[in-house]
């Protein structure tokens, strides 16, 4: 799968991201870096352990990274999560919101694994 196809699949904005970052090689490189951050697990841990401030920071970072990489769908889910956590407490809707984030994240992860090697 090419990067362009991946982006189409996960609801990302390829054209804009390519324009901003300069090359598809860079996009690929940073996609793997992004996944290495393992933000989803960090978010799950923080929510489970009730650490609201840490959860906020992870969600916020995740949103930022998605913005940079043009991962619209995941970014939107992360954004909703961030705002819900901004109050400093974990809201009741957290589980549902997290499920959304995880779904989008898994999609990105799965798709990235199938990417062609950069040429």
């Amino acid at each position, binding site marked *: 799968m090419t990067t362009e196809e991946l982006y189409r699949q996960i609801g990302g904005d390829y054209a804009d991201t390519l324009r*901003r970052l*300069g090359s598809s090689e860079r996009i690929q490189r940073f996609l793997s870096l*992004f996944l290495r951050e393992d933000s989803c697990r960090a978010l799950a841990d923080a929510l489970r352990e009730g650490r609201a401030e840490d959860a906020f*920071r992870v969600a916020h970072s995740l949103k*930022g990274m998605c*913005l*940079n990489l043009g991962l619209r769908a995941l970014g939107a889910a992360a954004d909703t999560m961030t705002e819900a956590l901004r109050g400093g407490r974990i809201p009741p809707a957290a589980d549902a919101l997290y499920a959304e984030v995880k779904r989008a994240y898994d999609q990105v992860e799965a798709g990235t694994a199938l990417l062609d090697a950069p040429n």
Partner: protein
Amino acid sequence: MTAAGERGEEKVAKTKTDLILIVDDTEMNRALLADMLTPTYRVLEAADGQRAIDLLQQYQSEIALVLLDIVMPKLDGFEVLAVMNKNGWIGRIPVITISAETASTYIDHAYDLGAVDYISRPFDERVVQRRVKNTIMLYSKQRMLEGMVADQIVEKERNNYLMVEILSNIVEFRNGESGLHVLHIRTLTDLFLHQLQRTTDRYPLSSSQIAMMVNASSLHDVGKISIPEQILNKPGKLTAEEFAVMQTHSALGAQIMADALQRHREELLQLAYNICRWHHERYDGGGYPDGLRGDEIPIEAQVVALADVYDALTSVRVYKPAYPHQQAMEMILGGECGAFNPLLLQCLCQVGPRLEEELRLRSPGDMAEQSILALSSQALAAGQASSRTLTLLEQERTKYQFFAAMSSEIQFEYHYATDLLSMSEWGARQLALPMLIEDPAGDRQLAAVLDPADYRDLQAKLRAATPDCPIVDAVYQLHVQGQKRWYKALARPLWEDEESGQMEGVIGKFVDVHERQLQLQTLQQRAEQDSLTGMLNHAAARERIQPYLAQSGRQYAVALLDLDHFKEVNDRLGHMFGDQVLQYTAQRVRRGVRAGDITARIGGDEFLLFLKCRQPVEPVIRRIFSGLGGKFHGFDIAMSMGVALCPQDGEDYETLFHKADQALYAAKKAGKGRCLFYEDKMRDLLSAISPIDR
């Protein structure tokens, strides 16, 4: 890329390209920005606010720009900005925020704290590159302008200074005095004003204000230019009328300044006016021309008044010879020259001892440059330091780092403001510690290398250091690469300025002296030991025994032991065998006593025992004696022993030794092979120990 960038102190190649600090808790973001900015720029990375501050402290003016995230753990971006404000870095180092937060409150708050711009997300490579480039360019232009302004300020002060110097020379020339009077007044004014700052809070002055007063003091006698020469240079005593004319020089000088003041609101002129007009006023109102009293007299005039009196007394004048320093002090303190502010007189007493030397040593050249810099410093500080100063600073740091890298020494630096200890690269590697350590007093890694008690000892020594004696020198053990080695610590405090007591930091080094220390210890041991048997020699034993005897309340025994027929052993069986016998005996003696007792070889075949007595005293000692004999390779070891007891037979070492000696002689005389305790009837016996051995 990022792995290397995280540890900021790694090989940041020393080229001329600008250095950018990227602060963001997300590795991906740092990597992305770094990717976009290298190779045009060099990059440092920090994952949280604290690390960012540490790097700013370390690299300071080298950093051309900071890209700062806001939301971070530990210290966030706002807190970093606050610290940058506090340390004065915000004016010199531009900060661009890169937060994903777009709420205007965040952005405004960052601006309020001194950020110059923000780059929103998502990052666009060309936007990032352009913004960074423009900001750096703008700031470098700004620094250049600052430099030019600073140079102008220094130039102006230099011109001022020159004018004042010329003016005062004119006046002095006409007075027929040597050029030294003005120099002396300046020196004295400088000394008194600085001492005043140390003594009291009543007249708070900055060092540039003091410099300006010192400069103005040069003009105190400017009014004399209007005094007729016959009066000015009259060798005898002045008549009442002549004196009245002379007195007008104060008001005349002030008039000159006032005229100039009409046109120029210059502080220097105001100070010169005050000094000219009132340097003959006295604290009790008994001076002239206006009879001001107490603190109505501006402090600069009070100080110059005192300086003028002291210099007049101790210099040759047309109408008098020079009086010695001591006499001048007595006259002033005795009130013979008018009343002065008690605080000032206190200062006079405090600087008194140094006065003669300072006046002799200070040359016009020194004072000039010092004054000019002090005068300029205020204006420079109000802005930021000029780029020239920064360049000089930069050079100093480069020099320092070069020497640190060259020398295989553990060099370190510590700053109180940031509680940060930094070490040279080589040093950190030697000790297997990080180059930067926050809160070193509480750091466990450091405590494993340098024992906390030693750390505190070094701290105490540094606090006790003074500007006159700043260097601290001590030897400690450091735990290095699994071993304990001896190191000499050489360090000194860094004070806010050379005079005030506020300690800002410490600089120093640790030098490996292990081999030398061991050598020292070996030499010491050898000096105390008998080389054949390894026992203490007489001198060392005596040194160890005397402290015990000095304490009363316990019972001790001094016993002298001597091998019987030893000379025959040497003659018949040879000296080598004799030596072995001695070694064997030494061993038995050592083993025969308890741990706290002291044994020594004090002569050819003579030994000394110092025993802490156990009850019952005599039987115990006899038992020890009988246990000392034995057979060594067929040779029967027989000994004689004489014992003296403390406190019964004496309490000082010489007495006890002498009596044990006599008891030993008695034992020999009685047939050898026995142990005798001192009795009074032995008093007149000769000594058993050959004179050479005693």
